[in-house]
């Protein structure tokens, strides 16, 4: 395992060290003292493992396709931007625009996230992106979502989602625990109960969450969840005339 002391390093140097080490066959990294360095592991295709202590900066794992990243601390904005594959685990909370345009892989966030999370996530073939949020999300969750899955566990039992959730959504689904105020939703989505298939999928992610973060499960039951899904795959089908 390669240990990198990040304190004082510019992101460009930090990423160069990682890429260089990958070329020399290194598979495991530990970055200590991260102080907001952006773009860690951006565009990396190798199945490496990176544990980060401290706070990585924006666009952690942007465009990446493979790495496993664990942050012992909070994350900032743009985590997993347009990522295709891999896994990101945040032992804390994360900022805005998590998983924008994400096509595959998984992001687990122990606590809450900010605004614009999961916008335009999309699924393709056997790629299906998943974001699991321990607490709540703010406005614009899952806007224009075209595929994949977002789970809001709402473990603190507050208001789980913000306004404009699922606006323009035309694929994928969002499972939310707790009551959803209909007025918070975009026009293109509706609330339905979970199917059996949904429930078994959800149960899997819930156990994974508790395993990953080692927190007590408490009384989270599947009945408390609702599903937000698009009314149509063609929300704007009749918007235009020829």
């Amino acid at each position: 395992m390669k240990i990198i002391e990040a304190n004082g390093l510019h992101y460009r140097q930090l990423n160069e060290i990682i890429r260089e080490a990958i070329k020399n066959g290194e598979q495991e990294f530990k970055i200590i003292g991260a102080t907001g360095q952006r773009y860690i592991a951006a565009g990396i295709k190798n199945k490496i493992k990176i544990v980060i202590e401290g706070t990585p900066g924006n666009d952690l794992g942007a465009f990446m396709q493979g790495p496993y990243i664990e942050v012992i601390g909070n994350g900032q904005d743009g985590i997993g931007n347009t990522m295709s594959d891999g896994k990101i685990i945040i032992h804390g909370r994360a900022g805005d625009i998590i998983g924008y345009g994400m096509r595959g892989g998984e992001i687990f966030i122990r606590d809450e996230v900010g605004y614009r999370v999961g916008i335009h996530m999309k699924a393709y073939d056997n790629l299906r992106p998943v974001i699991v949020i321990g607490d709540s999300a703010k406005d614009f969750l899952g806007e224009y979502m075209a595929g994949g899955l977002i789970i809001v566990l709402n473990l603190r039992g507050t208001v789980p989602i913000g306004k404009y959730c699922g606006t323009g959504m035309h694929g994928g689904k969002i499972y939310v625990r707790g009551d959803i105020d209909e007025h918070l939703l975009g026009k293109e989505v509706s609330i339905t109960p979970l199917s059996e298939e949904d429930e078994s999928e959800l149960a899997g992610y819930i156990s994974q969450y508790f395993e990953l973060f080692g927190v007590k499960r408490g009384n989270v039951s599947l009945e408390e969840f609702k599903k937000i899904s698009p009314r149509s795959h063609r929300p704007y089908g009749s918007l235009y005339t020829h």
Partner: protein
Amino acid sequence: MPLSTIFPEFKIIRDKEKCIACQVCVRQCAFEAHIYDPEKDEVYSDDSKCVGCHRCEALCPTDALNIIKYPFDIKDNKNWTPGILNDIYRQAESGAIILTGMGCDKDYPIYWDRILLNASQVTNPSIDPLREPMELRTFIGRKPRYVEVERSQERDTVKVKTQLPPQLRLETPIMFSAMSYGSISFNACQALARAAEEIGTYYNTGEGGLHPDLYKFGANTIVQVASGRFGVHPDYLNAGAAIEIKIGQGAKPGIGGHLPGEKVTEEISRTRMIPTGTDALSPAPHHDIYSIEDLRQLIYALKEATEYKKPVGVKIAAVHNVAAIATGIARAGADFITIDGLRGGTGAAPQVIRDNVGIPIELAIAVVDSRLREEGIREEVSLIAAGGFRKSSDVIKAIALGADAVYIGTAALAAMGCHVCQKCYTGKCNWGIATQDPYLSKRLNPNIAARRLVNLINAWSKELKEMLGGMGINAIESLRGNREHLRGVGLEEWELRLLGIKPAGEGW
């Protein structure tokens, strides 16, 4: 009879004497304007369906067809034209937004036609391009403020010490603008790629991802990253010679894109990486970019993801505040800025946006170049102009106004057979260009189309050299931003001021 009758735009004239009822026109017209009547063994036509693409006319073996503008007998009215009325009828029926294709076709001033070039006479001789070498080679990318060189001890060799930022090398300052696989056929994409390779220039993937069979043209490809992030992954980013972040497009500034589900075929689904049949929606903004700082963040995310090996540029539509926006983009770290003017084309856009939003590219180039110079950062960014370039003289005037290179879209499609019928959004392009229907797209032979593209660019390049030589200039580089070589005719004071050119008749 419906309440509102749509006025036909075209009249199909069939010479009964010549027509042999061979039904070529029936097969050629995807809009089903020609109908065969087996009982009478005759072909007849429905004018209302014709979009004026002239395909049937071109292919009729006996030359029996002639497509003309529909002669109207309604009272002539400058305000309530048949076109305006048609739109009202259509919207009264559908309650929907009117879609269209190609660039704005309205009568806004085309400044290229009001700008004249200079030529040498007596006092400085012109250069004969047939005899002298003429340099059209252009480099796109950030230029260093100064170059440090190192002489060897013996002072006989010189080495450049400064590390040059990545550059695109164009053999002629003309590239093919972003047209996605999806908006145009695979054959059309392939023709553009091949032609770019042969000419030594670049084509642009648009926001539709890159088909696996086109990766081999990577050295001549600019890959685009748009708000939908379709088909964007590490291999895609690394496949091209440069990356262009698409913020806006001249045909539809401020709004997103929308490839309808019907067009997301198996193959398109594979390159865009979305399931077949779902709408490919590109949101209006990139939702990770709400400011210049955010833009900088994406520019550097892309540079990190591609290890600083490629220029990363930003494409915007020419809008009112374009100069200030462009300097912001330059300061955000972009290596090139693409500005797409009012007349820039598209595969599909709401007509109301296409025809009413933006500013002409001529003014945009001039004000952006001036502003970058004023701020002393002109060399830090290259300027690519796009939107309605029709001929080599438009190109050379753009360069003299301050552009480094231009993108051509519609002109390239025209070279492949497009007749600018503006029906690209229907997916029924009879010329096999803006369609995914294999029956139609196989009409476009990529070999022939590539050859025609190469011919067009070669012809324009020769003309560029002629004009340059006439001005006594032997390198396009020396013309860039050299507005003394331009003069305006029939322009108002304010237009001359914004274009930064003198009126014709005024000397140095």
